């Protein structure tokens, strides 16, 4: 059974409080020890997220190293998100959703064409947002590793299958991470309209941050 863990942190004390519209993104720095909460305001919204060691952007989040070292394919409270050098970047400290994906990658205009056809080539996609906001801090296409999909449900099966299922998230569900070192967080609030990862209707999310500036 999934264990849901709430956070003791209170929104009025947050130093970051920002709503990210559907299809928009965010890049920012979380100092070591700081906490970032992502609130799924309307439920069933995928939030594609990358983390980087702020002191060395090449030491970036590694989805595959993370799931291998924890021995489980899904992320939840207690998951330590590791870098390519196996350094913990952030730890999930609270989670009222219960389970998050890190194997489904980010949507892109090019992969939308593969999955849905040429009519989706000019639809907005997470990779566009990653590149646009990443450029502000020197993160380019070669620096985009495989991301976390907070609130997204991508079940694996023992026979080696993978599916995109309806979300397990709900309005107001949130996930919170604690930075284990100074990290850069790069977020795309997924604009995908071709599958159930956003409940067919992308919606805004709220970011809350607690740290001493």
């Amino acid at each position: 059974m999934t264990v849901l863990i709430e956070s003791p942190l209170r929104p009025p004390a947050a130093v970051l409080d920002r709503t990210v519209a559907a299809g928009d993104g965010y890049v920012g720095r979380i100092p070591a020890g700081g906490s970032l909460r992502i609130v799924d305001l309307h439920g069933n919204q995928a939030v594609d997220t990358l983390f980087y060691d702020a002191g060395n952007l090449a030491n970036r989040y590694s989805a595959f190293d993370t799931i291998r070292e924890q021995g489980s394919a899904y992320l939840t409270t207690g998951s330590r998100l590791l870098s390519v050098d196996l350094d913990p970047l952030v730890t999930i400290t609270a989670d009222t959703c219960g389970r998050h994906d890190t194997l489904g990658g980010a949507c892109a205009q090019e992969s939308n064409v593969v999955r849905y056809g040429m009519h989706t080539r000019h639809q907005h996609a997470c990779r566009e947002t990653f590149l646009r906001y990443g450029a502000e801090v020197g993160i380019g296409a070669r620096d985009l590793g495989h991301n976390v999909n907070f609130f997204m449900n991508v079940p694996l099966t023992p026979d080696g299958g993978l599916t995109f299922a309806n979300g397990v998230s709900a309005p107001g569900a949130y996930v919170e991470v604690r930075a284990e070192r100074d990290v850069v967080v790069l977020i795309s609030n997924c604009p995908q309209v071709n599958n159930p990862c956003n409940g067919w209707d992308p919606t805004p999310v709220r970011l809350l941050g607690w740290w001493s500036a």
Partner: protein
Amino acid sequence: MILSHDIPAASYWSVRLRTGRLLRLTALDDGAVCSALIFAASDPVDRLNVPDTLKAQLSARIRPPMVLMSDRGTALCSVTGSSLDWHDCLTGHSLDGHAEAAGRSSNATDRNDWRRSARYGLLSELRKHGRGPTDLHGCVNFFAKVAIGDDGRLAYDPRHATAGDWVTLRAEQELLFVCSTAPHPMSPTWAPGAVRAEVHVGTRYGPDDPSVTFRPESARALAAAKAVTT
């Protein structure tokens, strides 16, 4: 056959493949693993995208007749055949810590039996091609299986591949294929195996090719590769 090369256990290698060529990998020892990175040779950025490959074909493993897809939504290669129906692509390659767990090792003490991780080997080979750490990405661990439990638990299967197991890849555009034969990172022991790599001329495929007919997504990635090679 154009080329045949035996990659020793716990070594590394790379090869450029022209469009249409077939790369056949054969395990020469029980438990051999070939951790591979694949790049579009003519593009400085485009490379294998494991998540896109999996979600487009609704699979958590690599098997025939899947198409391995790039960031740009093009087919890099098709898995045209294999004696195994499961090649791991979820758990990354071994790092220096995995090699050191078997004891410290160096060229000075162990000469060419020096234990080096897949990371060491892949980076060494990438640097020969003007590439580096930013080019490390999700790899395919050919011949390895990490079983998936009902709750997402991951368990390495140490008895998956035996000597003689094989897989064939058809290059759908000009490729750079970089690989290491270091043990799988979840292997409980340092017991690497050798792998034979053969490059064959290959034949043109038609509309009834199993990779084309596998899924509409596979066919669209193959069409996108055709568009960059013709």
